[in-house]
């Protein structure tokens, strides 16, 4: 006897498969897991046939916390799918393993604590991120970036009141930090407290007159506060928002051209969304999180960071920069990673010349080179710890 579902489908005179069993759905699925201090993490990579992309899922203690499309390098995309999936899984596993291991290796250095926290934040591992950001603030009470990061964790956890409490304290301790005022204002906006939000946004702009994000947030606050007429008529553009966009236009020629055409609340609202979207596209948090992890791994766990992994990362970062993320901070990371990479070549050279000297080949040159290598090693080691990231 046919099921009711099959009967319904046959009613139209066509045989439609109720499942997709007939279609070839090849799976490249790869899985790995690790446990750390009582918590378990599972990683799963596969090729999504519908989205046509390799992805990774991360589970923490059995709960899915992250679905992430893989960010492959050009070289990786040329490999067969099965290899792509495997290499993505290995890469993610290597990074997660390193990050978990590093928690006990970085000591109390606030920059490392914040940087590692950012990696966990980028993987939606809120508990791990929270712990590290909190420690970073404990060690450095004027660490504005760590405050912002921790407040974001609270927002992600649906705890705006905790975020508010933290940022109010941060602003009290560091009243001259524009980004803290802006971060606090954003939480006030989330809570619908427009007067408080505006006070802090105006302070942020007073401290940094070119603070694009703060202007946008101020614009949003005035847009949200408008009372729309009940008769469905268009609301004129609020004067405060026009004034804000005029100021932004001094940094943005395209906006300057569009400005005379913005006459209604809807026009301003649309323009705000465009600018906010442009700003969101410039957000490099995930890239910076990966850079921070590599930086900390090199300095604190170099024995587990192979030259090949560093090389692959450098290729990935170079491609990111070439594809529209050409920002000073990312260039600075890339420059520093190239210097780190040099240390691996020094090791190669040391190994080779030692072999030559041992074999008695070209002794004079070999010994000279060995001497140069010792100086190089010392210099690179020294410079690596002094680089500013």
């Amino acid at each position, binding site marked *: 006897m046919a099921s009711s579902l099959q009967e319904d489908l046959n009613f139209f005179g066509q045989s439609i498969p109720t499942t997709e069993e007939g279609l070839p759905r090849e799976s490249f699925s790869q899985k790995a897991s690790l446990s750390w201090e009582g918590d378990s993490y599972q990683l799963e990579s596969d090729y999504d046939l519908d989205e046509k992309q390799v992805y990774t899922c991360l589970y923490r203690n059995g709960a899915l916390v992250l679905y992430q499309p893989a960010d492959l390098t050009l070289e990786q995309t040329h490999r067969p799918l099965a290899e792509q999936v495997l290499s993505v899984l290995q890469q993610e596993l290597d990074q997660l393993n390193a990050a978990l291991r590093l928690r006990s290796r970085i000591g109390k250095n606030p920059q490392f604590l914040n940087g590692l926290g950012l990696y966990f934040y980028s993987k939606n591992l809120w508990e791990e991120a929270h712990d590290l950001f909190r420690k970073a603030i404990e060690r450095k009470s004027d660490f504005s970036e760590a405050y912002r990061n921790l407040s974001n964790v609270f927002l992600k956890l649906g705890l705006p009141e905790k975020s508010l409490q933290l940022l109010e304290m941060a602003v009290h301790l560091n009243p001259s930090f524009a980004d803290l005022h802006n971060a606090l204002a954003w939480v006030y906006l989330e809570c619908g407290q427009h007067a408080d939000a505006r006070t802090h946004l105006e302070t942020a702009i007073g401290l940094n007159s070119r603070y694009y994000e703060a202007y946008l947030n101020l614009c949003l606050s005035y847009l949200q506060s408008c009372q729309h007429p009940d008769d469905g008529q268009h609301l004129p553009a609020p004067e405060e928002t026009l004034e804000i966009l005029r100021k932004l236009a001094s940094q943005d020629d395209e906006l300057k051209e569009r400005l005379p055409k913005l006459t209604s609340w809807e026009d301003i609202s649309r323009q705000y969304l465009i600018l906010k979207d442009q700003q969101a596209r410039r957000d490099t948090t995930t890239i910076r999180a990966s850079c921070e992890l590599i930086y900390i791994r090199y300095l604190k766990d170099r024995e587990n960071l192979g030259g090949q992994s560093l090389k692959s990362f450098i290729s990935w970062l170079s491609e990111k920069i070439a594809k529209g993320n050409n*920002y000073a901070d990312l*260039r*600075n990371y890339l*420059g520093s990673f190239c*210097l780190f990479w040099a240390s691996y070549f020094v090791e190669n050279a040391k190994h*080779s010349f030692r072999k030559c000297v041992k*074999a008695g080949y070209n002794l004079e040159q070999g010994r000279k080179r060995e001497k140069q290598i010792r*100086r190089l090693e010392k210099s690179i080691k*020294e410079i690596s710890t002094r680089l500013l990231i």
Partner: protein
Amino acid sequence: MDINTVDLGSLSLEELSSLIIRTGKEPSVDPALEFQRGKAAFMAVRKCWEEARSNYRSALSLNPSFQKSLKNLELLDSMVLKLDPNSP
């Protein structure tokens, strides 16, 4: 690409890296090859410095007041100066 005949100075960092990895995998005990491999690694160090310098300069051209890259560039230049200008 033969490590014994190629002009190492004309290779990119990527090519040098591949050459070093490839020749490292060969089970050779030829000291002449090892010597060339060592020279290639030295050349790669120089290229790494050039890449680093170029990226710090790009950062500064994007943001001339970016202190981190300014300091890093100074550090790099002072290190290169301290070492023998002909090495690596």
